[in-house]
C-alpha cells in the first residue's frame, strides 16, 4: 500500500504524511525524487530517522519520533506551519482513516466511543488544508465491515475533503460524481470489490 501511494507522489511535491500507516510511504520514495516532507511541528525538508545513538529530541516529527533534516530544510513556528497547510501550500497529505464516506467525508480522529479521551491534533487542519487529501487504510475493518460508507458513523474530521483512497484492495478516486475505481488488486474482481464497499463504485 505504502509503495503504491509513493508511486503517485510527483517530483517537487510538498507532502505531509500522517502518523501511523502513512509514515511508511517515505520508505518507498525513490532517492532521486526530490519531495519536500512537511511535519506539522514546524519543519519542511524532513529526512529519515537518524542512526541509533545520534537521535536529537529537538528534531522530531508529528509522531514525536526523532528525524533528520535534509539539505535545504527549514524550521518555522506552529502558526506558520498550519498557515502552510490551510493556505494551499501543501500539495498532498496522506492520512489514515476509520471511515470515508462516498462524498469524501473523513473520520479519523475519534472512534466515538463514550469513554474515549478525545484528541484531534492536526488532523482537522490537514484534512481540509491540503490541496489533495489521500487516505490510506485497510479496505474493511478486522470484522469485515466496510470502511467506505454512505455516511460516516464515527465523528467526522472534515467534510468532502478526501480526493483519493488507497486500500489493500483498490485505488479509488473521490469526485463530485461519486467513487471511481482506478485500480483493483490483482486477482480481485470488480464485483468482489463492490461487495466489500458500502457505496456504489464506478469503473
Amino acid at each position, binding site marked *: 500500500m505504502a509503495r503504491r501511494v509513493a508511486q503517485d507522489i510527483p517530483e517537487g511535491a510538498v507532502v505531509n504524511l500522517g502518523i501511523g500507516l502513512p509514515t511508511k510511504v517515505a520508505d518507498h520514495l525513490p532517492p532521486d525524487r526530490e519531495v519536500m516532507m512537511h*511535519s*506539522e*511541528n*514546524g*519543519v519542511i525538508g524532513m529526512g529519515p530517522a537518524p542512526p541509533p*545513538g*545520534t*537521535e*536529537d*529530541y*529537538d*528534531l*522530531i516529527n508529528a509522531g*514525536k519520533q526523532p528525524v533528520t*533534516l535534509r539539505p535545504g530544510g527549514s*524550521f*518555522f*513556528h*506552529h*502558526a506558520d*506551519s*498550519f*498557515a502552510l*497547510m*490551510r493556505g494551499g501550500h501543501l500539495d498532498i497529505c496522506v492520512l489514515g482513516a476509520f471511515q470515508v464516506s462516498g462524498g469524501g*467525508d473523513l473520520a479519523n480522529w*475519534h472512534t466515538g466511543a463514550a*469513554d*474515549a*479521551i*478525545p*484528541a*484531534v*491534533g*492536526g*488532523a*482537522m*487542519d490537514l484534512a*481540509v*488544508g491540503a490541496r489533495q487529501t489521500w487516505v490510506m487504510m485497510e479496505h474493511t475493518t478486522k470484522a469485515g465491515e466496510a470502511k467506505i460508507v454512505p455516511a460516516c458513523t464515527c*465523528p*467526522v*474530521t*472534515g*467534510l468532502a475533503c478526501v480526493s483519493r483512497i488507497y486500500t489493500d484492495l483498490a485505488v479509488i478516486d473521490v469526485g463530485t460524481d461519486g467513487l471511481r475505481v482506478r485500480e483493483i488488486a490483482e486477482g480481485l474482481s470488480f464485483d468482489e470489490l463492490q461487495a466489500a464497499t458500502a457505496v456504489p463504485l464506478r469503473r
Partner: protein
Amino acid sequence: MIDKILPSPAAAMADVPYGAVVMIGGFGTAGLPNELVDALIAQGATGLTIVNNNAGNGDTGLAALLAAGRVRKIICSFPRQVDSWHFDRLYRAGQIELELVPQGTLAERIRAAGAGIGGFFTPTGYGTELARGKETRLIDGRWQVFESPIHADYALIKAERGDRWGNLTYRMTARNFGPVMAMAARVTVASVHEIVPLGALDPEAVVTPGVYVQRVVQVARAGTAAGGFRTTA
C-alpha cells in the same frame, strides 16, 4: 538599562497568582520549558488554566503540574498519548476541564491574541463536533468557523539563546509554539541555554524580538529525553 535576565526559574515564577492563564510551549517534550514548569509547581499557584499542545508526558514537567492538582482547565489539541496517564486519570475523574482545539486553530488563536486580532474564520473543523455552537459563514464558497483569540497572563517558553533585551533564537523543532505564545501573554518568561551579550545575536536570525519577552532565565541543557536534547557524549 534594560535587563530582563532573572537569576532563577523560581524568581521568574514568583508572582503567578491563583487562577492565572498560563501558556506552556512545547510539542510533546520538544520545546517544553521543564525548569520553568518545575518552578511553577514549587511556587504553588493553583486553579490554573494551561494552554499547551498536549496534556503532559510521563511524570515530569506539565504532567507533574497536573499530577499536583494545580490545573483547573487545559486548552490543548492532543491530550491523549501513551504516557499521558496523569491527565487521563484527572479527566476520567472529572477533576479537569478540557477544551479541545484543532492544532492549527490553537496556534492561530494564540497568534491572533498576540496580534490584536478579535478572531478569525477558518475552514478547519467545519461540520465537526469541535465547531458545535460556533458561528459559521460561507466565504469564497467555503464554510468557515469563527474562532476567538486566546490571551494569557503568562507564557513559559523554551528558547536556545537570548540576550538581556529578551531577543531569542530557537533550536530546530523545539521552536514550535514559542514565538506565538511569546506574543500572546502579558508576561512571557523564556528559558534559554545560553545568554549572550546584547548585539551578539545576528539581527537577521532573531526569531522572537525582545519586545515580546519580559523575563529571561538561563538553564543548563538537560541531557534527558524529557529535556528535548540528548547529548551524544
